[in-house]
């Protein structure tokens, strides 16, 4: 990884966490729809990021968000899981041409359908993990499912919007 990509990835990570904390933390639609845009920063890390770094970065990101939400460990657990699963998912949904040497994971370079599958699966895993950890029991099962799906739509929508904005 060159210094240039390192800096650009780090900037993006900080930007996503920042905007999560400052803006999306207080934006909840209809009491059920949350937006966890910071997941997008992990999705966008380049393919050559080593697996261990990916897990570590995910964990630290989760921990930082946790501190602001007063939910010690929940975001960290969800993020560590998707950080771990990402390389396996990439193997599973390899496009026909295979990945290029320096694949950027964006709608621009990988196509809309591929990106939606990729982001959708990871965001869904993240949300399931997060909301059921938060619940701590199965007492509000259907409410939580509603929260998961509405937040899923909101998060995916925002991640895609951000993709188009960061287009060069």
């Amino acid at each position: 990884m060159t210094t240039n990509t390192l800096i650009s990835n780090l900037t993006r990570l900080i930007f996503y966490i920042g905007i999560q904390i400052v803006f999306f933390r207080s934006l909840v639609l209809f009491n059920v729809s949350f937006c966890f845009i910071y997941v997008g920063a992990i999705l966008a890390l380049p393919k050559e990021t080593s697996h261990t770094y990916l897990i570590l970065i995910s964990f630290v990101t989760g921990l930082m968000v946790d501190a602001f939400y007063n939910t010690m460990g929940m975001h960290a657990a969800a993020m560590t899981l998707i950080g771990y699963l990402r390389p396996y998912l990439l193997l599973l949904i390899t496009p026909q041409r295979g990945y290029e040497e320096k694949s950027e994971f964006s709608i621009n370079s990988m196509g809309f359908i591929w990106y939606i599958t990729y982001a959708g699966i990871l965001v869904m895993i993240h949300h399931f993990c997060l909301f059921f950890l938060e619940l701590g029991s199965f007492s509000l099962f259907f409410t939580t499912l509603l929260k998961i799906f509405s937040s899923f739509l909101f998060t995916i929508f925002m991640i895609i919007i951000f993709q188009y904005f960061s287009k060069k």
Partner: protein
Amino acid sequence: MNELFLFISRSRAFLIFAFLEIFALYCVYRFNNYGNAILFNTTTSLVAKAVKTQNAAIRYTKLNDINESLAQENLRLNAQLLQIQNKIALDSNNLKLDSAITSRLTLQYAEAINFTTNQRNNYITIDKGTNHGIKPNMAVISASGAVGKVKMCSANMSLVTSILHSENLVSSKLKKSGTLGSVKWEGLNPKTVELLYIDIYEVIQKGDTVLTSDINSVYPRNIMVGRVKSVKKGQQFLNITVDLSTDFKNLAYVYVVKDALIDEKNGLESSINNPKK
């Protein structure tokens, strides 16, 4: 031995994942209980600084509402003061109350700099801490009603467990009949809570006032909780929904209640519970 190292090196991603995941889950288990402190939270100095700055910026957009609610509160307090003054003037024999009772409760105002209303367990961060004499388990109220209780304090910040917390039950009573019950948040709507354990034979009407009870270990008595929104018959108890009087979504200023006799009370109670000491 060499193979062991090779194995570790090959599966290091999984090992790191397993370690961090277990650590995170341990944190969830250990720090998100009702009783336990949270390791990193919004009272941790760096995080607190960030939320404070953010709050200072957002506050400007809310100033109108805040002024309005403060004016309302002044109005209410002035009316009450007039009433009390009249009462004292009418009382011919000027009795003096024991100062230990009259000055038992004091209030410390604080600014709510960070709060959530939509998580399963919600907390409020306030900008006063142990330096201002705040301790865990003190009651927090707003101009319009009960808010929560202090969970933990740093030097200049405190974390308050909101009534909107899955395990924070408030001992309450109905103003009309004095019947005791518990107020508990059901987890979705931040404007309503449920009033539990009210017997099915009680007569309760929409709009009845719910106050904190006299046997409450946290709140002072007769603090407004809310008004009854709807009543439905259940198996053994009534299912009562209560409209909260505190608007948790627009919380700005709160009061922390300091009880001068709390140590004495706790000391007495613990001496009963542990008679050997």
